[in-house]
C-alpha cells in the first residue's frame, strides 16, 4: 500500500519542556497513513521526545496529538495501537524468543493456537524461524533486533515506531537491515515512524523526512527535496556534504558568490539581497573548454574515497570549495570549473547581523546578554532606557579563556563558508550569538565573549 492522503497522526503546536529546557518548541506535523516517516536530527534535537510523545511515554505540555482525528493525549501507552522497536531492543531476558513475541498476544487473551500461528508467521517474516526456543541473550545483536521487530509487528499495530533501531549494529548489518525494513514496510502497508541521527539511513528508507534541530522542525520533505533543496544552512550541512557560501541575489535567476556571478533558477528573492548559497560537491564540474569555464581554481588536496575522489580547490578569488569527481586532478594543477544553474540552491538568510535587547546602565555602558559592555557615548539615550543593540557577525571577539570575556559561552554549531567560519555561540545565559571568524574553533569549545565599543550600534527601543 502506498502512502495515502489520509492523516493517521497529527501533531498540533506541540511543546515539551524538561525543567527549564525547552525540548520541543511548537511542533506541528502530520503523518499520512502507510507512510515511512523519519525524524532526523543530531542528538538533543527533540526527535526521540517526539516519538515518546506519540507512543505515550511522555505527555505534551502544550498542543495536541491526534490519531485518526481523535485527541489521544489522555490515553496511556498500553492502550495505544502502536508498537515500538527500542534502541537496545529491550527483549525480556526471562522469556525465550517465542514468549517474548507472544507477550502482547497473551495479554490480549488471544487463543493459544492462534498465538502460535501468528508467532510462526512473524518469525518467518523476519527470517528467524526455528529460533522460537532460543534464549534471547544467546542471540546476536542483529538477531535480537529481528526478534524485537517481530515482537512489535505480531500485534498488528496501526503504527510501528522505531527508535534508532539499527544504531547498535555494525555497518554491514545496518545496510542489510535497512533493505529488509524497507521491504517489510512495503509488504505490510502499515505506517512506520523512524527516528535516527544518520542522514544516509534517512535518505535510504523514508518516504518523508522531518529534519529537526534544537526542538524545532527545520524542513519536511521527500529525501530528494531535502537533499536538493535544503531550506537553510543547518539542513544543507546536516544532509550530505555541501559547500555553503555567502551570496547576493542580483536579480531573478542571477546570483553572485565567491566573487563570481552565476545563472541560477531561483526567483522572487528581490534585487541585491544577501542570501546563502548551497552547492553540492558533486555538482561542480571540471571542463577543458574555456567557453564553459565560469571560474578557475587550484587543486589543493585530492583524496580517494572509494567511488569518487574528494578534492579541495582554492578559487582564483580566494575561496575554498569541496568537489567530488570520478577523475582525480593532481594537487597544484590549475583547473577550469563550472556549475549548472539547476545545481545552485539559493536560501534566504536567516539573519544578517546580531540583534540584542538591552538596557543602558550609564552613558558608556549597556547591559545585555547577562553582562555589562562598554560602548561609545550615546546621545539622546539616558541611563535606564531600553535599547536595541546591533553588531555584525565579524565584530564579535571570541577569547580563548572564558574569564577574559565579559560573558562566557560555548561553540554550539559551526559552518565553513568557503573563506570563513560561521559559528553559533550559546552563552551561559542561553542566548545565541552568531560570529563570522577566520580562527578555527571546534564544537564545544568554551569561549569568552566581548565587543569593541565602536562596533555596537545602539538605538532606542520603543516601549510597546
Amino acid at each position: 500500500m502506498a502512502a495515502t492522503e489520509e492523516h493517521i497522526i497529527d501533531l498540533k503546536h506541540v511543546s515539551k519542556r524538561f525543567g527549564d529546557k525547552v525540548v520541543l518548541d511548537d511542533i506541528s506535523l502530520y503523518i499520512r497513513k502507510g507512510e515511512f516517516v523519519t525524524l532526523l536530527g543530531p542528538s538533543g534535537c527533540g526527535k526521540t521526545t517526539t516519538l515518546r510523545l506519540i507512543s505515550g511515554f511522555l505527555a505534551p505540555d502544550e498542543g495536541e496529538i491526534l490519531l485518526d482525528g481523535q485527541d489521544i493525549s489522555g490515553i496511556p501507552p498500553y492502550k495505544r495501537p502502536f508498537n515500538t522497536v527500542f534502541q537496545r531492543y529491550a527483549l525480556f531476558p526471562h522469556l525465550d524468543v517465542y514468549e517474548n513475541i507472544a507477550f502482547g498476544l497473551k495479554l490480549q487473551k488471544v487463543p493459544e493456537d492462534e498465538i502460535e500461528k501468528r508467532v510462526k508467521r512473524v518469525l518467518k517474516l523476519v527470517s528467524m524461524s526455528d529460533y522460537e526456543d532460543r534464549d534471547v541473550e544467546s542471540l546476536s545483536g542483529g538477531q535480537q533486533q529481528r526478534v524485537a521487530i517481530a515482537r512489535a509487528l505480531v500485534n498488528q499495530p496501526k503504527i510501528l515506531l522505531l527508535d534508532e533501531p539499527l544504531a547498535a549494529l555494525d555497518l554491514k548489518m545496518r545496510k542489510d537491515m535497512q533493505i529488509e525494513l524497507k521491504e517489510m514496510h512495503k509488504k505490510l502497508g502499515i505506517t512506520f515512524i523512524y527516528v535516527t541521527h544518520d542522514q544516509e539511513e534517512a535518505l535510504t528508507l523514508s518516504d518523508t523526512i522531518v529534519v529537526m534541530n534544537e526542538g524545532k522542525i527545520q524542513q519536511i520533505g521527500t529525501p530528494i527535496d531535502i537533499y536538493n533543496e535544503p531550506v537553510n544552512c543547518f539542513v544543507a550541512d546536516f544532509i550530505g556534504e555541501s559547500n555553503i557560501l555567502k551570496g547576493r541575489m542580483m536579480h531573478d535567476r542571477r546570483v553572485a558568490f565567491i566573487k563570481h556571478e552565476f545563472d541560477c533558477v531561483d526567483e522572487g528573492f528581490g534585487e541585491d539581497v544577501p542570501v546563502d548559497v548551497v552547492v553540492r560537491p558533486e555538482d561542480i564540474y571540471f571542463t577543458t573548454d574555456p567557453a564553459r569555464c565560469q571560474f578557475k581554481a587550484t587543486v589543493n588536496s585530492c583524496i580517494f574515497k572509494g567511488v569518487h575522489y574528494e578534492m579541495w580547490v582554492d578559487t582564483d578569488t580566494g575561496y575554498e570549495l569541496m568537489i567530488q569527481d570520478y577523475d582525480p586532478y593532481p594537487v597544484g594543477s590549475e583547473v577550469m570549473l563550472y556549475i549548472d544553474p539547476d545545481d545552485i540552491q539559493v536560501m534566504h538568510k536567516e539573519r544578517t547581523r546580531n540583534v540584542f535587547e538591552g538596557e543602558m546602565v550609564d552613558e558608556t555602558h549597556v547591559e545585555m546578554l547577562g553582562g555589562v559592555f562598554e560602548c561609545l557615548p550615546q546621545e539622546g539615550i539616558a541611563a535606564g532606557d531600553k535599547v536595541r543593540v546591533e553588531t555584525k557577525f565579524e565584530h564579535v571577539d571570541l577569547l580563548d579563556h572564558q574569564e577574559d570575556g565579559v560573558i562566557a559561552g560555548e561553540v554550539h554549531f559551526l559552518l565553513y563558508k568557503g573563506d570563513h567560519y560561521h559559528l553559533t555561540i550559546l552563552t551561559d545565559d542561553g542566548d545565541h550569538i552568531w560570529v563570522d571568524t577566520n580562527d578555527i574553533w571546534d564544537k564545544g569549545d568554551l569561549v569568552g565573549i566581548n565587543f569593541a565599543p565602536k562596533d555596537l550600534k545602539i538605538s532606542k527601543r520603543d516601549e510597546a
Partner: protein
Amino acid sequence: MKRSHWSIPYVVFMAIFVVLPLLLVMVYAFQDGTGHFTLANITRFFTDSDALGTFAVSLEVAIENTLICILIGYPAAWILANKDLNRSAVTIILFIMPMWINALMRTLATAEIFNMLGIPLGKGTLLFGMVYDYLPFMIYPIYNVLAKLDRSYLEAAQDLGATPWKVFWKVTVPLSMPGVTSGVLMVFMPTVSTFAISEFLTNNKIKLFGTIIQENINSSMWNYGAALAFIMLIIIGITTVFSDDNENAEEALI
C-alpha cells in the same frame, strides 16, 4: 614472590577458623563420649521427640519470618528503588541504619519495650523481633536488583499492552527474583540457627533449634550438640541448593 602467594594468609585463616571447626563438628558428631565411632548421636535426634519438635518449630518460625520479610520487604524495596516515589537517599539510610547497631542490643531493647508495654512474650513477639532484625537483609538485595532494572523493559511491556499492574507481575517481579532469592538465603539460614532472639523475646518459652544446640554444648554434651549442628548444616545446605539461581543471587548483593 609469586602473586598467588599473597593468598596464603587467607588460606591459613580459613583452614583454622572455617575448615578445622567444621571437621571437628563432624568428628564429634560421629563419636561417643569415649572417642569411638558411632551413629548413635544422629539416630538419637531422629528418636528424640523433643528435639524433633523443636526442629519443626524452628523451621516453621524461619519460614514464617522469611515470608513476612518478603511481604514487607519487597514493597519497601520497590518504593525505595522507584525514583518517582523516593527522591532522597535518606529513606534508604533509615532502612539500613538498624544494621549499624548490634542485633543483640536491639533485641534486648525490643524485649524491654514489650515488657514496658505489658505485652506478654510469646510467638508474636518472637516473630516481631526476627522480622525487625532480618528485614534489612531482605530489602537490600531486592532494592539492589530493582534499582538496576533497565526501565526500557517496563516501557516495552507497556508498549505491548500491559497495564501497570501486569507490568509489575509479568516483568518487574520475574526480573527481580535474583534479589528475592538472595534475600531468602540471607534471612532463612540465620533464623534457623538463631537462639538469642528466642531467649530474650520469649524468655525461652519457645525453644529453637539453635537453643537446644547451645543447651547441649553448655551442659558439655559435646557429641550430641555437634550432631545437631551437623544436621542443621546439612539442612541449610539443602536450602542453598534449592535456590537454583545462585549466581544471580550473588550478583544481587553487589
